[in-house]
């Protein structure tokens, strides 16, 4: 592969942007703290990458498909899982099972609203998220339950120098990549996203594909919620809030087509790292909150333009 071909890959732009932000931050400290910064980016980026992978699958389904219930699903899954574990040792897998169960239930509920009531996904998932959030408030009642010590150690620990959560995010990315590139289901998802009617007429079970996709995104969100709560020492009612826009931003910056039918797994990880690094870069340059938001928005627009114009020419 020649360098020019590489530039035509939409995912390269999020990685270039992430590297630039990394370099500029280290420019201030003349290289000190590179390891710490990379470690933090991988830790925090992992959560964005996990929810982003799910959101990417939904967005691949085509225009209008998006899951806005990710934050509420994360919160509810984390809350119920921590409550069930109630800090007891040896309950980590029980908690994981409960979190994933919440994900499956939320995904099925979302899709039921979309399919049975013919609601646009944006409305259905937003409305459902209010319900999930209320469940979380109701069962949480202001308690802050600590995760079991073993689980907390795992979530904050490292393996071969990389954060464990990053390993989880990386493994999921590889699984999603294989599913999209090599499986029949992945082909069906991509066909459905290009044109639902064409896919249906070509014999693709489009409703099955859509249902499994909405379940998958919710399961990814609940897994991210479970890990995030374990990582940060407990579930909080607003723990998912920033992941609403984050999940969509990493998909778009990562080079996945908003028009559907085209996914980009490596781009999601690059974008997740970038989203963390750009904030820490602006922080270390002493930008205030307002300036930081304006610059972050501008940079995102610039990357999306760069990635999309490249794709047209390719």
């Amino acid at each position, binding site marked *: 592969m020649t360098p020019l071909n590489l530039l035509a890959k939409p995912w390269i732009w999020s990685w270039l942007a992430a590297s630039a932000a990394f370099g500029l931050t280290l420019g201030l400290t003349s290289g000190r703290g590179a390891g710490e910064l990379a470690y933090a980016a991988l830790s925090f980026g992992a959560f964005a990458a996990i929810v982003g992978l799910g959101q990417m699958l939904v967005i691949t389904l085509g225009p209008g498909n998006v899951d806005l219930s990710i934050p509420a699903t994360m919160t509810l899954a984390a809350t119920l899982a921590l409550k069930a574990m109630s800090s007891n040792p040896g309950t980590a897998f029980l908690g994981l099972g409960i979190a994933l169960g919440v994900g499956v239930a939320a995904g099925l509920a979302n899709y039921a609203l979309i399919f049975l009531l013919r609601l646009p996904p944006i409305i259905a998932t937003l409305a459902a998220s209010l319900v999930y959030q209320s469940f979380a408030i109701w069962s949480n009642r202001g308690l802050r339950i600590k995760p079991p010590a073993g689980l907390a150690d795992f979530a904050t620990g490292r393996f071969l120098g990389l954060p464990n959560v990053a390993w989880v995010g990386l493994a999921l990315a590889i699984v999603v990549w294989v599913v999209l590139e090599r499986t*029949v289901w992945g082909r069906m998802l991509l066909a459905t996203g290009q044109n639902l009617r064409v896919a249906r007429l070509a014999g693709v079970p489009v409703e099955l594909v859509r249902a499994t996709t909405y379940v998958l995104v919710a399961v990814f969100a609940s897994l991210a919620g479970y890990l995030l709560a374990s990582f940060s020492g407990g579930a909080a009612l607003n723990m998912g809030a920033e992941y609403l826009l984050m999940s969509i931003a990493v998909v778009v910056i990562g080079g996945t087509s908003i028009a559907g039918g085209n996914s980009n797994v490596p781009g999601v990880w690059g974008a997740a790292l970038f989203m963390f690094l750009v904030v820490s870069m602006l922080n270390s340059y002493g930008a205030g909150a307002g300036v930081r938001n304006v610059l972050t928005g501008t940079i995102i627009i610039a990357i999306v333009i760069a990635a999309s114009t490249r794709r047209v020419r390719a």
Partner: protein
Amino acid sequence: MSDHENALIVTLDQAAKHFGRLRALDGVSLSVAAGDCIGLVGHNGAGKSTLVNLINGGLAPSSGTIVFSGGDTAHVAGVRSVFQELSLCPNLTVAENLKISHSALKGPGWRRSARAEIRASLDEIFPDHGISADAQVDMLSIAQRQMVEIAIGFAPRGTQARLVILDEPTSSLDEGIAGQLLAHIRRFCASGGAVVFISHMLGEIFKVASRIIVLKDGRIVDERASGAFTRQGLVDVMGHVAPESAQVAGARSDPGSEILRTAQGLAARKGEIVGLSGLAGHGQAEALAHLYLSRSSAWRPRKSPEVVFVAGDRPRDGVLPLWSILCNISISVLQQTARRGLVNRQAETAIAAEWKSRIGVRTDDVRNPILSLSGGNQQKVLFARALASQAPLVIMDDPMRGVDVGTKQDVYAMIRAEAANGRTFLWYSTETEEVCQCDRVFVFRNHEISAELTGVDISEEKILEASFAMQEAS
């Protein structure tokens, strides 16, 4: 026709309209004068709509001239058209819809004048119509909407209607209302107006037209006073003379067992090629889509589909535009060769290579994007997608659009061979010649089957006869 010279409204001289290589209208000379009522007939694709759009100024001619004697443009000359596809805004009232095509109507109180004008026009054409000028259009029935549209066409709208073109105005009207319209047309022409009347109801044409013009393949093939035509003569002039070669199909000596019968009456035997014909938009495509959807599932993945679909409307129904030729061919057969849910890429490549050579897709590499192919070659890919499966029933929705003659012959031969192997084909085509190659033909009219033809009965004349409402006039 001697008094035509003094009150001409529009004159076409060798007017032609080409869309790319397609000659929609190929040199038409025609004049319409006050008092004329012209019946315009011809099969689908004969160029009727193009001719209407030239006369009303919607299209500019590629060559030749169009002269309006009452002004520079069709609008100033008082030329109006009423289309078959309802063109009212459904969210506005009847009076507001009049305003859209009546630019002089403005200032405070325009609603009052609009109401009065549309009410007067409706009262004049359709006495006892029962339509309120303040009714919102989407609350009206289809027939009422058509009536409103006709009334707007005849309304003065600031000037005066001198020539009104009616394209299938009675298709959604019942006998009584249609009679009122025909009576109004006669009154309108008697008082110096002119009408161009397009209808597939030949009886109506004979009732109202003073002159009948027959269009075929973009040319006027006959033009006479309506008294000089007989009904059968008119049908004969419209149709082609069927070439001898169209008879190759013949009757099958060995009919298989019946594998399909729908509530609508559509039936097919194993190994049979069943044609669907009739005028475009009379329910053939809907019947096929409905049949496909009812025999396949949006939930259950199947290893081998029971039925496959070849789309004619490629962007809407067929092509997956982001993908390669390879992926476009294999999407319907992936599950046949898949192992544990994984795509068997060797088998996939083999299938694509086999069909590339069998059906002659012109590309050097099947991994090229599908959009790099011409329309005809994209269509071949869609054929390959369907035929590569083992589905016993193949549904084809006018699949030969944009396909060149050579390819058509290849595909006909392939369909014959597959049918001989026991596959059943349901084939809707707007080209009557293609339908004549089938073993059995169902002719659709108004979303119902109006005739079932077999064997030697399958001829262009018989199909045309069943497409048009012949019995109406008898």
